[in-house]
């Protein structure tokens, strides 16, 4: 019995998840086009836009510096960027190279594969925040207290979760060649329209009208609030509700896109 059990058993899931997560991390990290842009770009934007006025107050009389405010913006930009581009482009590429074909014939359960992908993207996102935080502190003299830092980090990471779903959906909807263009075309304008680079009041009216419905706009409120720069008007619980709603919506979209793709290939 026991000998037969060895030959007819299945591998334990936790070590499988650990090995798969490591492999997914390495797969992302060793592609400089992805890892360098994900990790360096937020700091670079901070250098271009935030450094010059890092110590100025956000607005006359404010106790929050522009540096702290823009650090929060770029932390959010960075993590969401990892999710949309990391997931989107890498999934589209893997489909293009028919890697899913071989994976499908192994005993690797699909949920383990996707959890590993999510964990690896979260790890890269965390690195991007840490690098940005260090850069802002050292080059810009932006010093947040421990509780602000922790709140910012946790909120940025939580707010990245709906974008895992979005990246996942784009990865299954876009082709391998169009994925970089499609993900950037969706992500960059949304980041602008949500006020991550320039305050909303400087943007055209139609964008100001759309902004409140964008997930990044809601996430931006949450990270700005964490560094002591709350937005007037609605409370942050409304923002959390939007984030939760978008998480559900994007994951359902991702599930639909995944099933559609699998149905085409494996029926």
């Amino acid at each position, binding site marked *: 019995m026991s000998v037969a059990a060895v030959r*007819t058993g*299945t*591998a334990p899931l936790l070590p499988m998840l650990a090995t798969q997560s490591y*492999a997914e991390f390495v797969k992302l990290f060793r592609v400089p086009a992805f890892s360098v842009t994900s990790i360096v770009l937020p700091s670079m934007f901070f250098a271009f836009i935030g450094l010059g006025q890092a110590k100025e107050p956000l607005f006359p009389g404010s106790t929050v510096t522009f540096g702290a405010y823009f650090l929060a913006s770029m932390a959010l930009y960075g993590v969401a960027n990892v999710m949309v581009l990391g997931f989107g482009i890498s999934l589209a590429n893997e489909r293009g190279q028919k890697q899913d074909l071989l994976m499908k*014939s192994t005993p690797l359960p699909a949920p383990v594969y996707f959890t590993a992908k999510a964990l690896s993207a979260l790890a890269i996102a965390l690195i991007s925040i840490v690098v940005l935080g260090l850069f802002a502190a050292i080059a810009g003299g932006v010093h947040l207290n421990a509780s602000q830092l922790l709140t910012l980090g946790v909120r940025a990471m939580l707010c990245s979760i709906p974008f895992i779903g979005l990246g996942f959906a784009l990865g299954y909807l876009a082709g391998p060649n169009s994925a970089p263009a499609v993900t950037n075309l969706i992500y960059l304008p949304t980041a602008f329209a949500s006020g991550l680079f320039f305050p909303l009041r400087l943007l055209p009216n139609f964008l100001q009208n759309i902004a409140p419905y964008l997930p990044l706009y809601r996430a931006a409120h949450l990270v700005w609030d964490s560094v002591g720069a709350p937005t007037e008007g609605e409370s942050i619980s409304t923002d959390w509700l939007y984030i939760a709603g978008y998480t559900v919506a994007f994951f359902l979209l991702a599930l639909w896109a995944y099933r559609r793709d699998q149905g085409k290939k494996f*029926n």
Partner: protein
Amino acid sequence: MATLGRVSTPAAELVNASKRYGEVEAVRDVSFVIEPGEVVAMLGPNGAGKTTSISLMLGTRKPTSGTVRLFGLDPNDRRARSRIGVMLQESGVPGVLRVEEIVDLFRSYYPAPLPTAQAIEMAGLEEKARSLVKDLSGGQHQRLYFALAICGDPDALFLDEPTVGMDVEGRRRFLEEIDALATKGRTVVLTTHYLEEADQLARRVIVIDHGRVIADATPAAIKARVAGKRVTFSTAAPPEESQFAGLPLNSKQIEDHRVRLLTSEPEEVLRELFRRGVEIRDLEVAGADLEEAFVAMTHHGAEK
């Protein structure tokens, strides 16, 4: 659980399985049983339905009708998947992982895998263990796929065109490893274009044409089906079609001055060729090999 390990459970089984892609019927009402420990070659021209048959056994394609079992289970059952290793045509692997990293990754999917070094050695990739997958040559890629197929120490291997792109040495080593696995009682199902491979490895050949099984027997029995001889010779002048008109031939191949005929009446054919004044050199007459049998079967013996 114990029933899964019983020797009597077939490794793979297709019962009246059909697969249709839109208008195309890739596999039509196919039934066969592959017992544990068998080494089976699936032969057939391109588009005959070999890959689709393998996909049905692996569960990567669902039959339009009929049933498919893998170790007595649904092929998508993780317990069944944990007992097989596969090599597929056209599948990709992440290029930025090292050979040993990806073998390690695939090992983690299986309950009782081989040591990483052993799987890499069996595939003949020892010197490339630290290389990135994207730096491997075509033949080395194929060896890597073999390493990934065997690293879980599977009971059954499904290999779709495994030696495509391998160099001579790689192929020799690969065939030795397959033979060793077969000796250990492992089940091997492979598709191949190289008939000598099927002849050398398999104790059973399933010939598929137009989605149907047209033969299922030992290589010897399949060869015997073609009651004929292979007549090979060269000619001094380029051979002309008219010289072969009306001869009792099953097939004819002409390349430059070299002529290969398949006939059940070699004496009659040669007598007639001499009478027609064809200058024959390097004459060989031999029993038909698997390739001729295969050509004769899949072309229904028709001669253009």
